[in-house]
């Protein structure tokens, strides 16, 4: 894991929010870790104090090593009036590679007012991994993959 505590907490929080493991979100050896881009995007778009609240809250949760960390994140972060919308935006960012404008009416019902984080992020949206599919214009799967049944 990174020596940057913000990045460590961000990846840990992201794992609880997305259902992917920390190694999947931030591989130990990675040439282009999108987690770094996502944390930078978060910091560029959300007030520093609020980002700090979220990451500190998660750090405290993780320090207690609770049996169900996702439940603690739900109660302490997602259900919080200030932190909740940002945490949900983090989920969207990981799955769709898009940062949505937090100033629009919540909850977000459409796909407007969003910005693709980067070309690198576009190819790494978790939605594609979860659906065993690929974004438009980018696929690593071999010709004829669609004929094979999905894996578990």
């Amino acid at each position: 894991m990174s020596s940057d505590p913000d990045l460590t907490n961000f990846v840990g929080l992201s794992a609880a929010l997305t259902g992917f493991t920390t190694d999947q979100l931030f591989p130990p050896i990675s040439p282009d870790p999108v987690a770094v881009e996502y944390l930078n995007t978060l910091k560029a778009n959300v007030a520093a104090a609020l980002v700090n609240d979220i990451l500190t809250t998660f750090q405290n949760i993780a320090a207690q090593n609770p049996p169900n960390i996702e439940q603690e994140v739900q109660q302490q972060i997602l259900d919080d009036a200030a932190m909740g919308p940002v945490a949900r935006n983090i989920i969207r960012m990981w799955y769709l590679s898009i940062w949505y404008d937090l100033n629009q009416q919540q909850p977000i019902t459409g796909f407007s007012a969003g910005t693709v984080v980067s070309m690198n992020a576009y190819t790494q949206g978790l939605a594609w991994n979860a659906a065993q599919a690929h974004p438009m214009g980018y696929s690593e799967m071999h010709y004829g993959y669609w004929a094979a049944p999905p894996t578990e």
Partner: protein
Amino acid sequence: MHVAKKIICIIALCSFVATAITSCGGTQQTANSNAPPAPVASAPPPGNLSSNLPHDADFSDNPTTLDQIQHDFDVFSWQSFVALNWPALPDGSPDTSKTIGADGDNSTVWESYKESYEVFLPDGATPLPWGQHQLPAACQSVNGVEPKVLRMSQKVSDEVLDESGQPFNTGPIVDQQNGKYARFEIRLNQDAFNFIVNNTLYNKQGQQAFTQFIQFPTGVAPTPTNPNTPVGGILIKAAWKVIDTANGDIPGRYHTVRAYVYTPASDNPPTKESCQLVTMGLVGFHIAHKTQSAPQWVWSTFEQVDNVQPGAGLPSGAKLNFFNPACSTCPVNVPPPKPWDPSQTLPPDKRSQIKRVIPIDDATKALNAQWQGWLKAVNPNSVWQYYELVSTQWPTQPQASLTGPNPTGAPAPPFLANTTLETYIQGKVPNVSSSCIMCHNNATTTNAKFSDFTYLLERAKNKGGGK
């Protein structure tokens, strides 16, 4: 044609400056077999120079970071470059009594490998055995005895483009010095060649009949308990320029060969078949090696140091190969205007103006200086000191399933290009810019099956002829 004129020669793979073909109709020799005992070199080569071709990268330093692993793969690249360019015995094996560059230049091990056109024959026939080579008919009437034939003026030959519609027709590269087209060749080592021949993958019918998942042999590093491990499949792609001393080329800065430059007949543009015997200098060099640590293959790429910027020791005023610093208005990284006829000589304003888009990183530059220093220590006039590693691409997640959603294993660096071989697709745009593993992940057989990261199998023809 008289059978004897066909020159289906047993090329004994002699030094290219000596008698290259010593016998026709002799007994085929396999590399490393029947070779006389090699005399022991009088002094060990400097540094880590060795004729031993590595079977895989050496991770005995227990690397834990991306940069450390990159370093180990870059060392593997240099070890491979030196071993492949080691002086060769007549059977193609390395001459351990000699040292690379001791005579300035030398014949090389890899130039005894099979050329792609010798494997995928127009009639889908079985290739000649390892060690035997066949010239195109147009070259048989040209005086000379050299085994090398350079025919491609783009990275992928036209005949392959006709068959597959691959989007690689990005254009040729033209020499700043003399206006001649650069030429390319692709060669296979014996492990790769044997795999193709033993499984009849050299024609369409054989590929159709092959129902297994295609997996070329994997290189495995030898151990004290298992010293006889396979080398693994190796594919070499080389770029060459015409050496023209009258136009300022300095032959002592290139590995040079006398080669048949073959231009196939074409309707568009109208081009007559031709073959000329020319002195060519090596300007680009890819090594793709399938290893245990890299099922997606390890991709090393080298260039001659004067391709797009002055290399060390280039005399003041000497021209670069593919960039003219005096021309501020020349369009950069743009292919020459069509029609592309490789038999033509282009005027100065049509020649390639090429810049490297992604710089060589500092760690690789430092490693280059170390290995170039060792090569120079062998002989201050060694041509091999004038080559540099651009980088090595390897999979950071080699365990990724080759049939899963991310078979490429997250390559590092994500993008890699050689200015002579991926000239016009340099950059950092996913699925567009050059990335060895990402691109070759799309390679298939003629019946659209995954071909294990090589486009070569697309060149197979129908058995008996016809497309």
